[in-house]
């Protein structure tokens, strides 16, 4: 099956200053440093990582807030960037919901103005915009009179529903969800998540779900990719990711999650105790970027950055501990 959205060795480097002004040697932050990932139709792929791992940069680059430094982003096989710009047709298909609806919605606009803009730009063929807006509000379970309210009159959960409605107004096929519930209380999170899952079923949407909350990821995604300092460490089907995590970083992250029942406690890999801090992305360690914190580090880890390889169908790891790749060409899905 052809993926709906695919990242091919995507890189996004930022120049944040110069080391030597005369010679202009740039200091760069490698926010995203060569990731490959595919999202299939109707699928939710989770992208997890700690702050500074580059997960949001992936989303922002996808919607054109940044131009990629190298690599490609493809929507149904065609490049999202054509001559450095994104055609309007592709802008419509890929929408985004940001983390904090308090700052992603214009406080001086009413909900009606917020929803009308994407309709006017991306779907000029709609004759009765008011009716369409009413339909969209109904989809996100908000009453019709909310059209005339300003974001500040709404609760955090309701504002996030408006942000989802704005994304839906363009009638997209892919939505990038950048920590859509981390600004919300857990009692509200459930409502927003269930709504997103229902919309996905109804409209056959594909989600790239970005979060740092692994427990949440366990319950919403079909596949999970984990990022560390701009690179993906491991990609696996959700079940395998949580039950047989392979990368030491995945294991460390899982063992650090506070959980609320004995049943969950048993799922945590006990062996790895989190140590060390995330290195600065300006100064990424040579070799495998995780080797300074890794309890299993070997000599090779400080020198050679491991390659991503398949260790089971659909399960990819970038770690020197797993030299035995899955070799048979018919062994299953071989692209991440």
């Amino acid at each position, binding site marked *: 099956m052809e993926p709906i959205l695919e990242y091919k060795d995507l890189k996004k480097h930022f120049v944040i200053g110069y080391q030597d002004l005369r010679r202009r040697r740039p200091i760069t932050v490698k926010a995203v440093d060569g990731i490959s990932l595919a999202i299939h139709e109707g699928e939710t792929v989770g992208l997890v990582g*700690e*702050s500074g791992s580059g997960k949001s940069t992936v989303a922002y680059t996808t919607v054109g807030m940044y131009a990629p430094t190298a690599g490609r982003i493809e929507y149904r096989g065609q490049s999202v960037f054509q001559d450095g710009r994104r055609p309007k047709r592709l802008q419509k298909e890929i929408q985004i919901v940001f983390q904090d609806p308090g700052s992603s919605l214009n406080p001086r606009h009413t909900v009606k103005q917020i929803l009308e803009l994407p309709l006017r730009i991306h779907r000029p063929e709609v004759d009765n915009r008011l009716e369409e807006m009413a339909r969209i509000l109904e989809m996100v379970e908000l009453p019709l009179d909310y059209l005339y309210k300003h974001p500040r009159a709404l*609760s955090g*959960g309701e504002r996030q529903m408006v942000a989802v409605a704005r994304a839906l107004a363009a009638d997209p096929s892919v939505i990038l969800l950048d920590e859509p519930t981390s600004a919300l*209380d*857990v*009692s*509200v*999170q*459930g*409502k*927003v*998540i*269930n709504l997103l*899952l229902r919309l996905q079923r109804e409209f056959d949407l594909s989600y790239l779900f970005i979060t*740092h*909350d*692994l*427990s*949440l990821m*366990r*319950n*919403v995604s079909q596949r999970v990719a984990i990022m560390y300092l701009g690179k993906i460490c491991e990609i696996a089907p959700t079940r395998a990711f*949580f039950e047989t995590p392979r990368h030491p970083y995945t294991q*460390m*992250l*899982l*063992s*650090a*999650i*506070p*959980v*609320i*029942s004995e*049943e*969950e406690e048993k*799922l*945590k890999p006990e062996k790895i105790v*989190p*140590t060390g*801090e*995330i290195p600065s992305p300006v100064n990424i360690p040579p070799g495998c970027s995780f080797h300074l914190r890794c309890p299993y580090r070997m000599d090779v880890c400080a020198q050679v950055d491991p390659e991503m390889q398949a260790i089971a169908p659909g399960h990819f790891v970038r770690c020197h501990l797993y030299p035995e790749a899955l070799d048979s060409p018919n062994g299953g899905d071989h692209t991440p």
Partner: protein
Amino acid sequence: MAAQTPLLEIQDLELEYKAYGGALKVLDGVDLRIHPGEKVGLVGETGCGKTSTMKAVLRVLPVPPARIRGGSIRFNGQDVLGMSQRALRQVRGRGIAMIFQDPTAALNPVFTIGEQLGAVIRSQSDGRLSRRQVRAAAVEALREVALADPARLLEAYPIQLSGGMRQRVCIAMALATKPELLIADEPGTALDVTIQDQVLRLLHNLVEERNTSVILISHSLGIVRQLTDRVYVMYAGSIVESAPTRRLFAHPGHPYTQRLMEVVPRLSGGGIAPGIPGRIPNYLDPPTGCRFHPRCPHAMAICRRYKPPAYTLEEGHQVACFLYDETHRDQASTAPAQ
């Protein structure tokens, strides 16, 4: 436990804030008790009054608009609410210290770590320590929170440290005065999960060693489960349930606690519960009776009229809910234990 005098005892605390259009009745009779060496968790959603309660304990509420309408706070038997500023200085620091959620906001950006930590140590030594002794104590305090190269760190400004290091500095500052009670307000929330885990483990070891009492304020049930002996659950300005930590997680009694546990995503999967319908009440005009009744699936006529008293389910497990009155016990047991 019952015979011991509590270190901190809050009784029936009522607090309101004057606001445009009336008074926000934020705390509606909070009861809370901490014994020496006990680690207590205080959980609840944003806006339920957790931080207001702790600010009342430290007497750092802005008065006005805040006003204590009733109740008492006793620390080591002394009445905190009626205390003079001078007596209060003794309680703050040596008696009670606090760690805040955001270590970046808690540290002053224009002073070095050494100056800030030194000021705390000096203020509690009544001027008996020489400069060299203050410096030595500061180095020791930083060493205890496992920060490398403490001597050099004293010269650093907060901006030069990572988030995890800043929170360690805040912990060092809070513990430098050897307080009897430490209030930790969401101490790991601003940190990444692998850093949070390290900071919380460090905090746990330090307070265990010194037998410091702790109030851990958090909206994360997982963190509270890991670090406390006893949990108080707060909803809209009152304590709705309190129990030993293990007991609470195994047998949550209050409908609110039960819902709260249902909505936490589980590492073991099983989907996401739909959330708790409704929202935290408007404090200008809070619901009468039990403040949870508009959101409660078991609400009865009496819940609308009267505030439920605390019923004891078993030794040390109290639930403020009419379902636990004898006339309704059957209904309570059929309430979906999560």
